[in-house]
């Protein structure tokens, strides 16, 4: 898309588009594996929990985790990815940039 690379993720039938550029050291974020992640605290009743299965992308460069549906960086709350509107029309995926 011009000089801008995006990654489009199909998570449970819903499409999400985020930049293919990690805000940490500019790694190709969307080439990373998609998985869940671990959580622990009062909200998990103090037991280790596996959450967001299939919704977390880890940057292939340094493993920084992002929750794709919200664009939130899992570990650093001051970092949030730009999210692009994605729509499906006539079998085409359209992204508004």
């Amino acid at each position, binding site marked *: 898309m011009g000089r801008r690379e995006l990654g489009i993720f199909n998570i449970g039938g819903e499409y999400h588009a985020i930049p293919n550029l990690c805000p940490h050291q500019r790694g190709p974020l969307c080439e990373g*594996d998609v998985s869940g992640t671990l959580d622990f605290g009062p909200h998990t009743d103090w037991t280790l929990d596996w959450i967001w299965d299939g919704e977390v992308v880890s940057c292939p*460069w340094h493993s920084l985790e992002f929750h794709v549906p919200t664009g939130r960086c899992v570990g650093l709350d001051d970092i949030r990815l730009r999210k692009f509107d994605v729509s499906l029309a006539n079998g085409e995926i359209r992204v508004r940039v």
Partner: protein
Amino acid sequence: MGAEQRETLETLLVVDADVHVHEDPAALAEYAEAPWDVALREIAKLPERYLDLPGMSPRADYRVPFPGGSNRRQIVTSAAELRDGLDGLGVDVAVLFPDHLLTLAMVRERGFAVALARAYNQWLYEHWLLEEPTLKGALTIAPQDPRAAADEVRRHRDHRQFVCVYLPGSGLRTLYGDESYDPLYAAALEAGWPLVIHSVEAVFPVFPFQLDGFRTGLSVHALAHPLSMVANMLSMLETGVPVRFPDLKVAFMEAGTAWIPWLANRLDKEYVERRREVPLLQTRPSHYIRRFFYGTQPIEEPENRGDVVKLFELFDGENQAMFASDWPHHDFDHPQYVFGLPFTAEARRKIMGENAVRFFGLEV
């Protein structure tokens, strides 16, 4: 902007003081003396994991696996592949260190450790250093046998594609200040090669790697590297290595830099009271510490990037720090990050390349 062209990563000389090649046991078997070639062929039958091969890199990885994390290929197996990767990073010249032999000090069988170093050096020389002139070698030695290590240095002293002697820094039974290493240091000095102590993460029953009290890789990785450096630097200072070998250059690789001002300040305080224990030292320990060299990786990433510049001022990083990426490992630093820190243009040039030219004696 004036007439002077603005410097970019592309226009600047970038020397990467720490890049890793992947030595697989089958390849080394071709270069190993009997009976160690037999052992290496046996090891080659085992599935290989990251820096973890029974017998060859006995650094048990105790982490509990979960899906996710980096999926990037973190090994490089040929000079052409490495040159290609370094071109992508903007690195002009790189100094090559091993993968598995980062753990060489933890190999218990002394003869095997010596044979591994010998086989690796010859393999590195033939398959990487002669292939690509911008790739320089760190000559690996087995600390288990300092005299054999000195022989290894002498064996290669005419191979000037090697630019330093690599001392495995983790899991070491005898720290590098011990006088048993003197023949090795004398040989390195005679060959004109500096020393580079390179650490690796390990949980191992040798000081200071008894890190099994921690549950996470976060703790072990954060501590193992700087502890390795602190232990070896202290050992070298207490036996006066910088005084006994004043022309020997020494660098500390892969522990970042934040630990340096801490140790320097701590030691200067101790020195006031305990100078008589280290009568070889002629002045404050920090003066010697500021003459050592340091790899930048893993460079600190404070919220305020200017803090790195302040940190470097505390150990004369402008003149003593050498950019290192640690490519292709999991915690590599992209040169763009270090380049983009708010150093002066002169400091940036030195840190990204000129300090390494001086340390390794590179002709560029």
